[in-house]
């Protein structure tokens, strides 16, 4: 741990600007990337909590089907769980919260390229979220199709699909504008001397993510629009009776939604690439390869969507190609994993909370990735498609990957964002509960899926009962872990010890300014003359 440096603080971005009388108006009208990021972060964590509660209820209901909710409510529960966690939490997730707060700080800029468009995308996010929530309370039933809105059911069900889909459409707009803003920022706003290969790895991943956000989201937008047009005007592009084809919907949907997986997980990998060097006091091993592998994943990620549809009806040629390309994703992912581990090797490791979360990410994401290879190959996929194995796989990747990475980033940057420090001990106790609970909860899903338990089913034969009970018990540990973690952080916001400028000994630019950062970040724009992780040079000296 570095000694506390007491550099005079020139105010923080939380200070009132006095432009508006009401604090809510001042924040909502703000174009400061840090304020927008903080608002996003709070919104995301709130939606995450709601999503966790819904997931918790799903697990409780599966203890003994029917004791808690009826079938229809169960369908609505898993739909909402998916819609909220995916569209409101994890897709916007890291870019809008940590990306907003830290891209300008990491590249030495005062703000993003288009501050007002940034504010617009925050407003659109809020609007989209409100529309989705409206679909729950409007006249009629909440959506019950699952988060994928598959046709023909999504066109025929009497539930409020159009409202929910419109909300997702608006969120997509927000996502596009964020991606566009970040890519332009990274091109145009880097501090003097900050060449492409002096950028922190996190910025690289957000660059790749920005491109995916721009080039994938519009396809989802048009697809969702077709659902609305189908429901209101009877346009039958997906209706065989009118010449259409429901498989087309699946293609269009996954053409976006598979790249979207990389919108979720690429920046997560970026956070890990920041944390691992800092806590092992070593330069990121294979820095260039790690950065380029982000682009590699983004590019290959466009050509693998078919692996979601191996059982939907596709030619064998197409399936073999999709399966092969899916395997290619493992190469850049593997590059990252090996480089993180190599960074740790012979490092001077400080096992603080951020690193513990980061290491859990590496472990859990590896399991998620390797099980991905199992279901990416054609023969096992036929057996495992649409089972709990898939559910286990994507929770390992999404929650164990992106979710743990958000927690890692939250603990890593918490002192910078809030200017306070949390209790290290409580963070670790929370982590232990979360980690143990997570593995009990989701590993039993692999077993269930392998035994043939289909996903989204309300009821099951008694042979699956034992594993469902184990899984549900795991969810209790997981919930306790999350409660401890968030309680620890919330308490620290109000009562935590004051954090220093650089509590972890980080070398990137955000640690050179006060915590929390002042308005406009840098008094003078820094001039960069070295790479982002100069630990080895220091050791030589």
């Amino acid at each position: 741990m570095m000694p506390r440096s007491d550099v005079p603080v020139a105010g923080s971005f939380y200070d009132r600007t006095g432009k508006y009388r009401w604090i809510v108006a001042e924040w909502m009208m703000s174009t400061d990337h840090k304020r927008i990021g903080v608002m996003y972060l709070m919104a995301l964590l709130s939606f995450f909590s709601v999503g966790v509660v819904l997931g918790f209820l799903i697990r409780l209901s599966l203890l003994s089907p029917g004791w808690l909710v009826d079938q229809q409510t169960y369908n609505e529960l898993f739909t909402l769980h998916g819609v909220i966690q995916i569209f409101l939490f994890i897709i916007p997730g890291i870019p809008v919260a940590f990306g907003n707060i830290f891209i300008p700080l990491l590249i030495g800029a005062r703000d993003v390229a288009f501050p007002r468009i940034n504010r617009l995308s925050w407003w659109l996010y809020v609007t989209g979220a409100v529309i989705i929530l409206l679909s729950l309370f409007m006249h009629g039933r909440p959506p019950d199709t699952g988060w994928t809105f598959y046709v023909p059911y999504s066109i025929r069900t009497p539930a409020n699909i159009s409202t929910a889909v419109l909300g997702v459409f608006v969120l997509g707009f927000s996502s596009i504008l964020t991606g566009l803003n970040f890519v332009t920022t990274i091109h145009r706003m880097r501090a003097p001397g900050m060449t492409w290969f002096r950028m922190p790895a996190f910025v690289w991943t957000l660059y790749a993510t920005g491109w995916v956000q721009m080039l994938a989201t519009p396809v989802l937008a048009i697809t969702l629009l077709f659902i609305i047009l189908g429901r209101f005007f009877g346009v039958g592009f997906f209706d065989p009776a009118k010449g259409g084809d429901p498989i087309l919907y699946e293609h269009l949907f996954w053409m976006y939604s598979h790249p979207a997986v990389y919108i979720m997980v690429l920046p997560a990998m970026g956070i890990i690439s920041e944390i691992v060097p800092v806590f092992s006091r070593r330069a990121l091993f294979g820095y260039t390869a790690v950065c380029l592998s982000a682009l590699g994943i983004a590019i290959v990620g466009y050509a693998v969507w078919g692996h979601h549809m191996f059982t939907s009806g596709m030619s064998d040629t197409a399936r073999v190609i999709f399966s092969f390309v899916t395997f290619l994703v493992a190469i850049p992912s593997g590059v990252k994993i090996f480089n993180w581990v190599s960074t740790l090797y012979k490092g001077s490791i400080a096992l603080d909370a951020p690193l513990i979360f980061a290491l859990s990410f590496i472990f859990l994401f590896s399991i998620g990735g390797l099980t991905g290879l199992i279901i990416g190959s054609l023969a096992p996929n036929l057996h495992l498609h649409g089972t709990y194995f898939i559910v286990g796989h994507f929770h390992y990747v999404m929650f164990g990957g992106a979710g743990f990475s958000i927690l890692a980033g939250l603990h890593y940057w918490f002192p910078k964002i809030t200017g306070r420090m949390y209790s290290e001990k409580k963070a670790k106790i929370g982590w232990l509960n979360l980690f143990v609970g997570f593995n009990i909860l989701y590993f039993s899903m692999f077993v269930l899926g392998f035994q043939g338990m289909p996903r989204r089913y309300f009821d099951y034969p008694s042979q699956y009962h034992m594993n469902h009970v184990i899984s549900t018990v795991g969810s209790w540990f997981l919930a306790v872990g999350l409660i401890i973690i968030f309680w620890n952080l919330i308490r620290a916001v109000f009562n935590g010890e004051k954090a220093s400028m650089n509590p972890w000994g980080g070398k990137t630019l955000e640690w050179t300014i006060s915590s929390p950062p002042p308005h406009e970040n840098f008094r003078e724009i820094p001039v960069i003359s070295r790479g982002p992780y100069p630990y080895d040079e220091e050791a030589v000296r």
Partner: protein
Amino acid sequence: MSTETGHVDHLGKKMGMWFFLFTEILFFGGMFLLYAIFRSKYAQAFHAVAAEENLLLGTINTVILLTSSFTIALSIAAVKRGENILSSHLQLATILMGFAFLVIKVFEWNAKITLGLYPDSPLLLKRGKGEILFFGLYYVITGLHGLHVLVGCIVIAFMLFFTRRKTIDRGNYARLENTGLYWHFVDIVWIYLYPLFYLIT
């Protein structure tokens, strides 16, 4: 919070606009993809039913939109030479042509709807699947394209206001240039729609 330090990054603004146009290309790309798939499936029907489109009005609209692209390009050239008044007249001409395009479109749609040809209409459902799809695509794609034309007209109206107020001038015309890019994009989409719906007979 305001980072308006007086320095404006023109290149950055243009870059942002090009990125936005990429997303628009993918948005329309989704529709062109459907068109391609359905046309290859029902090639005969598509060719036969395209004859029911009003070729004359479609051609007039193409001419109008191409001309409007020309006037918006001229308006940018005028601003660059400091001739704000001339530029605003050219922008007004662009808006008027945009509206003319939309009015003609409304007449076209109206004629079809009076005949009973619209998505899910009893008359249309009695016809072949290829024809149902053709008219579905026709209404959806030209409808969304029309929406883009309308948005473009509104944006140009704002630019007209800025040009008159001289907040757009010789030294600061990135907004107008970006609006021009958008208008050209809308125009180019139509250049593809015109043969796909009117000329494939």
